[in-house]
């Protein structure tokens, strides 16, 4: 089975569309939306409606911190995120907000756990940026595979029983094998706002027969997204960072 995992779409219609197309072309059997559908980007309505359609067709979808912030009208975020969140809330109809509010914090499917930030207290939105945080996430669950997003930077951690996790930086479009002996934490890069220096949209493709995962990169028209960000009067940095992938 092939599973396409999309995280941190952040209301980026252009990136979302090309990634869905790329996932379809690769013969995906299961689609997972790993949270943060909205926030930062200029097309929240489009992305939420599209996500709702996909869920109707069998896709899994969980909540991210930006989805929560919009749904609960919370403002404890960075300045840019808060501005974008408030703007997003104004654009969305109650039905969209309701969709976001009902998303679960995590989902388990067979031996795979999906959670936006970390399996360690999912609602606290902790960042996994080092081996210690990865270790805490891994020890909070018994699943063989944990998939997270949130950092916008792809990473892989291999956890051998009783040992500290081993970090590996996955290469773009190169399949990385899972270990028979390990549990795994896969940090999926961002669809709508990559921050690893490569502006191309990122999603994870898992092949359960071949026991491997690939971080697929798909270039998209980020200039169009940035143009809309500017046209809507959203903070300029949100458009600039799409261009440089930071």
């Amino acid at each position, binding site marked *: 089975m092939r599973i396409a995992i999309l995280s941190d779409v952040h209301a980026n219609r252009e990136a979302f569309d090309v990634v869905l197309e790329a996932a379809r072309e690769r013969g995906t059997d299961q689609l997972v939306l790993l949270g943060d559908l909205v926030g930062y980007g200029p097309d929240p309505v489009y992305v939420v409606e599209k996500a709702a359609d996909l869920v109707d067709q069998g896709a899994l979808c969980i909540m991210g911190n930006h989805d929560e912030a919009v749904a609960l009208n919370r403002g404890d975020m960075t300045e840019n995120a808060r501005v974008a969140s408030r703007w997003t809330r104004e654009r969305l109809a109650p039905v969209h907000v309701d969709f976001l509010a009902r998303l679960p914090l995590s989902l388990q499917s067979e031996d795979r756990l999906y959670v936006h930030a970390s399996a360690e207290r999912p609602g606290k939105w902790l960042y996994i940026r080092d081996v210690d945080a990865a270790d805490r996430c891994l020890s909070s669950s018994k699943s063989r595979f944990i998939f997270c997003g949130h950092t916008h930077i792809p990473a892989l951690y*291999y956890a*051998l*029983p009783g040992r500290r996790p*081993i970090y590996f930086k996955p*290469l773009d479009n190169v399949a990385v*094998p899972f270990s*028979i*002996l390990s549990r795994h934490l896969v940090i999926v890069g961002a669809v709508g706002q990559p921050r690893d220096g490569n502006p191309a949209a990122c999603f994870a493709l898992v092949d359960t027969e071949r026991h491997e995962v690939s971080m697929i990169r798909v270039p998209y028209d980020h200039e169009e997204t940035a143009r809309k960000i500017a046209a809507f009067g959203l903070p300029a940095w949100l458009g600039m960072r799409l261009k440089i992938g930071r």
Partner: protein
Amino acid sequence: MQRFEPGAIIDGFELVEKLPSGGMAELWRATSQQFDFPLVLKFPFLDPGGDVSVILGFEMEELILKRLSGPHVPRFAASGSLARIPYIAMEFVAGRSLAGVIRDAPQAPDEVARIGAEIAKALAALHRQKVVHLDLKPENVILAERAAVLLDFGLARHAELPDLLGAESSVPMGSAAYISPEQVLGERGDPASDLFALGCILYKLATGEEPFGRPATFAGMKRRLYHAPKAPREINGAIPRWLEAIILRCMEVDRSDRYVDAAHVLSDLRNPDQVVVTRRHRVGHTGAWAAIRNLFRKPDDKSLVGRSKSSKLEAGPSIVLAAVDLANGSDALASEVLNETAHVLASREDSWLACVTVLKTEIIGDAPTADESGRSAYLKRLVALKDWARPLHLPEDRISYHVLEAVSPADAILNYAEHNDVGHIVVGARASSAIRRHLGSVSTKVVARALCSVSVVRLKAIEEQKR
């Protein structure tokens, strides 16, 4: 632990006979309807509660072997799951084990160079596939009819795979006799480590002795960072200087002083007359003054082994072959070939240039150098070739000159390129003519059959010629 018997069938493989096996795994000849090549099954010794690194080594070997191809590795056939019966089924490679050959060391220098070149070629092919072996030793090399074949990738490292094994262990992994200084310090992943091991193998082949013995302790292995082994010619005066120079350059403690890659070792072993023997040798700090100085100087181990150069390897070809036609002296096309060669060389500051020109003979077996006039033609061409390359101002250890005698220039160029693992060929093409179209030009044939990139240089046609 599972016991296997001849005749047992595992996943469609029938076990035939047990082969002499090492301490990590049991090896069995096997047959299967599914594969049209001879097979061997490798069963790792996995004791419950045993060392996890054995299982990791098994897993990594399977992952790496699956990704490798070519004549220098056994073909991967299948593998059995850890949950049931773990094994790797692969091609059985017939041939002489280097372990057997090395027992008869010292060997004649030509034989050492021949074997060394075979191994260097295998390493070049392996490194090109982004794999470093990290346990190169005679037991892991089969001199098969088709090529030298490398075995046992249980400690190997693939640049695109996580190094589960390296993170697992804090003790150096490798064989005490051949392990490189940087591996002793725990670094895994530099192709230069395999060149160090190759140097140790050549040392043993040429002298009959292992350069560092087989220390059993970490401190013993670490000695190679500070103490140079005896120079090969001190042990065996029959070793030519060029061979000693090659061996010692492979065995430099500082990786940045070793050969840049296996193709360069191959090239030197195949062209002894082009080896620069005046290179500075690592001088052991001997004498009272040095001893006192060493007392006060606490060298940092990491700085001794230098920095890895492997990131450079992707910048461009490591060996460039420039094929230039000097039959009618150095003309406009020859100088254009020179310009293009300079461009290709510029992508890497450590690339080597092999300058090749072909002295055409009319019939096979007619060697022009056989008589006096032939020899003078050869020397004249060599002088012309050196003069042609002079504007590049390359130091002598980056350039070599080859006047090849052949009926077919294209075949000579292709043969040289393949033999020396050339990464890029620059060749000139004359303007089109009826005869060339009919017979096929040298450059056309080179482009069609080369195993690497080829730049074809042609003078921009003048309007009136086109008509």
